[in-house]
């Protein structure tokens, strides 16, 4: 993975020094809250219900064992012993003291990490396929491009005060494991007829209040022009994006109001001016960054799945993924044990994952947008040992990809913006579907919960989505069906009136049972839904 050089390190250290000074000025009264708030919001520090919240960037979800270890130490030393992995492949701490945050940032800087641009109306952390560099179906590892985007976007002088936040996602295969269609910019790495790398460029996707799928701006932008092209998009957006209404400020509204063709024409005109200029990526730089991301050599030790315990085999079925290099596998660690808090891990669990990566996994880990962890490179021969080590740390949940692998935002239990709780709902659903055995019976199925319309819990793009709303002081949940985050991206449709928290587990059970009853062999949830329509689900849910 990418290693900081002196330049990267200097910048991160200077940012810590700057923030330390800002905190000092706030505490001594030199800065008012009004002046301080935009400054802390440029560095991932929010004030939530109970405490400050610090969001730490995990660039494109890739972590070294040492970085993971440091995240655990921060949870242990500055928080209450746990951290929350997010749908943007980052981690959040719920309880840090403001006065400790500069020290936390210092500690992060020691392992090449930071909280830069994890909030604010700027270009946020670029996300990608958690199996990047390991997936057999990728054209090339997408992470060098994510790293080039990271550097280009860090402290960008022109794009630090955009109309609204800006999220970029990159994939490198036909299968979309980064939900590029619901990002401000979605990039798909591909090759042209001559075999040269380039990008299919999408823009204007997003979730939140007005969920939209991105439109394609260009079918092929040659890789060396990547930064020039996205600069053109950002410049058009920065100049023309709406600033009169926070809820209409994302690029998706600009694309829609301008019209996809006219918007594309503006971007192309801007790109024509930038192409061939200073933003062109030299081949040497592409090679230099790519050299940090190399696949492991062939592993010759053998492995016999049939010889393993049944518990291992059940776990492996949901947790072990094919790897592009012979003899290797990727391991999914579900942070969704039945009835627990989605995406949370204790300091001890974080240490355990770091240690496993160190011992078996080439020191590398990934955070997924489903709030799980991936060990991308594990020799197949070591899978039983990895399984035992995960068991010892209570990290052996075998429900990856099942309906109990719920994405959930922190909701009203922590978040200042939330209208309703998410976590207790997730727990109740998870318990119900596991007790009834419906989770395994249903197979691959996604269920996401957001505590407010900002949609951090990705409810729009789940097969089954739940959105928390406030109705005169009471929590209600709006049910949507038919969303998808993959290459067949879709926005879910609202089924009917909101449900109370108590009604939700039964309603979800009804939806899952309806799916199982109607599906024809091998059908996905959305295929069944498309075939039979919403009505059978509606009837099942609202019959009670």
């Amino acid at each position, binding site marked *: 993975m990418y290693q900081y050089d002196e330049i990267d390190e200097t910048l991160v250290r200077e940012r810590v020094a700057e923030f330390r000074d800002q905190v000092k000025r706030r505490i001594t009264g030199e800065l008012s809250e009004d002046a301080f708030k935009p400054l802390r919001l440029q560095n991932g520090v929010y004030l939530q219900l109970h405490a400050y919240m610090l969001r730490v960037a995990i660039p494109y979800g890739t972590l070294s064992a040492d970085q993971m270890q440091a995240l655990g130490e921060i949870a242990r030393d500055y928080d209450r012993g746990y951290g929350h992995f997010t749908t943007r492949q980052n981690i959040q701490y719920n309880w840090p003291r403001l006065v400790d945050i500069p020290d936390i940032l210092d500690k992060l800087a020691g392992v090449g990490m930071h909280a830069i641009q994890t909030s604010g109306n700027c270009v946020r952390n670029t996300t990608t396929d958690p199996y990047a560099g390991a997936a057999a179906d990728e054209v090339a590892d997408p992470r060098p491009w994510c790293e080039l985007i990271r550097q280009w976007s860090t402290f960008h002088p022109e794009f*630090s005060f955009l109309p609204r936040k800006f999220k970029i996602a990159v994939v490198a295969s036909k299968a979309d494991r980064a939900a590029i269609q619901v990002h401000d910019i979605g990039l798909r790495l591909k090759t042209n007829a001559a075999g040269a790398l380039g990008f299919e460029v999408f823009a204007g996707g997003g979730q939140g209040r007005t969920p939209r799928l991105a439109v394609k701006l260009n079918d092929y932008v040659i890789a060396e022009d990547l930064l020039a092209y996205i600069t053109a998009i950002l410049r058009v957006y920065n100049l023309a994006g709406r600033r009169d209404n926070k809820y209409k400020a994302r690029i998706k509204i600009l694309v829609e109001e301008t019209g996809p063709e006219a918007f594309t024409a503006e971007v192309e005109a801007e790109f024509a001016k930038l192409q061939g200029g200073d933003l062109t990526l030299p081949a*040497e730089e592409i090679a230099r960054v790519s050299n940090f991301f190399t696949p492991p050599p062939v592993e010759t030790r053998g492995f016999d799945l049939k010889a393993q315990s049944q518990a291992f085999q059940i776990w492996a079925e949901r947790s072990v993924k094919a790897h592009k290099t012979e003899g290797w596998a990727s391991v999914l660690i579900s942070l969704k044990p039945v009835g627990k808090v989605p995406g949370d891990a204790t300091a001890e669990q974080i240490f355990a994952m770091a240690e496993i990566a160190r011992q078996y996994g080439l020191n590398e880990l990934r955070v997924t947008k489903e709030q799980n962890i991936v060990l991308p490179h594990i020799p197949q021969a070591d899978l039983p040992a990895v399984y035992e080590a995960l068991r010892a740390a209570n990290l052996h949940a075998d429900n990856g990809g099942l309906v109990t692998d719920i994405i959930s935002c922190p909701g009203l239990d922590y978040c200042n913006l939330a209208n309703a709780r998410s976590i207790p709902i997730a727990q109740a659903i998870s318990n119900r579907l596991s007790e009834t055995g419906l989770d395994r019976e249903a197979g691959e199925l996604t269920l996401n919960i957001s505590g407010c319309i900002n949609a951090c819990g990705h409810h729009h793009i789940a097969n089954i989505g739940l959105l928390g709303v406030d109705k005169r002081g009471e929590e209600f949940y709006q049910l949507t069906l038919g969303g998808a985050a993959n290459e067949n991206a879709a926005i879910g449709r609202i089924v009917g009136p909101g449900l109370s928290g108590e009604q939700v587990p039964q309603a979800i059970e009804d939806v899952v049972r309806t799916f199982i009853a109607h599906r024809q062999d091998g059908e996905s949830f959305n295929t069944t839904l498309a075939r039979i329509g919403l009505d059978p689900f509606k009837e099942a849910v609202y019959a009670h």
Partner: protein
Amino acid sequence: MRIDLEHRPALDLDTAEGVNEANIHVRLEGSVDWERVRALAPRVERFDIHFPKFADGRGFSIAARLREDIKFQGEVSASGHLIPDQARMLTRVGFDSVAPNSNPEDPAWKKGLTTFSEVYQPSNDRRSTALEKRTLAAKQALVDSLNKRLRGAPADEILREATRLFKGRIATLSSFGAEAGVSLHLVSQVAPDTPVLFLDTERHFDKTLKYRDQLSEHLGLTNIVNILPDADEAAEDDSDNRLWQRDTDACCDLRKVRPLDRALKGYDALITGRKRFHSATRMSLPPFELLDGVIRVNPLIDWDRDQVLSYFEEHDIPEHPMKAEGYPSIGCWPCTQPVAEGEDIRAGRWAGSEKTECGIHFSAKSKVA
């Protein structure tokens, strides 16, 4: 970037279009009509970009477009609701000054300019980016290792290694002067298709031009690239063809330094015929050096005068006709004189002035400093 305590007045776009004066100050705000701005720009001395709220970052892109697209060279100032944290961004995108609404005397404004000692993005402040520094460091490392390996090596070995390493991205520079035959002969032996860059200053002796054609044919060099000064620049700087009389440095800059800079864009490495014995200023030269991002290859660096003479004889290389007339180093006719016995070989170049080199072998940065 200057931090102004007071906001200077400026005309709005409508008013500015109505007045007939030049050197006007014009205020831009919100969404900009670029066609009108483009039309007005030649009459504008200063564009003032107003920020209604610090969070409204349109002004950063407006400034970037003024600099990059309109190519506006005058002053660009910022005014309105801005915070000291934005100082570094303002200066990077091309602002010359800022007049913030509140607290211009806050020391954070000055401090904000120096928060970060490194930058990732190329921008209008032309600061050297991380990428440029890294590329340079990598090239310097390559140069160091080549010098370690090849210092003192025979010329043909240095040349062979250089043309192999930089295949397709290496050229040779030749003045077709008195000694040019040696390195050109070597190139013709190792890689005859190597581009030979000739800086046609339009001030060469006719004998040099003839020699150029005769020698390249004799050696079988297939890729002679004649590099002329930019016609517009020449018309601007040297309309009377007398620039050499007024300012030799400016003449070299117009006819050699800038054309070569442009020509070198496509190359990573450049072969020169420089030798240490030429002058005191070249005594410490290594076979490889890095100059403004281009690696200079000096295969003949160790050679002395006798080696040069015997090489000509040994390989039967035609000589520059002026050599016999007492010119051991031949440049442009206005600035080249014969040299007396015992003088430095380059003593006849810019004789009577302190100038010793035209500048093509100097870093652009060292000239500024």
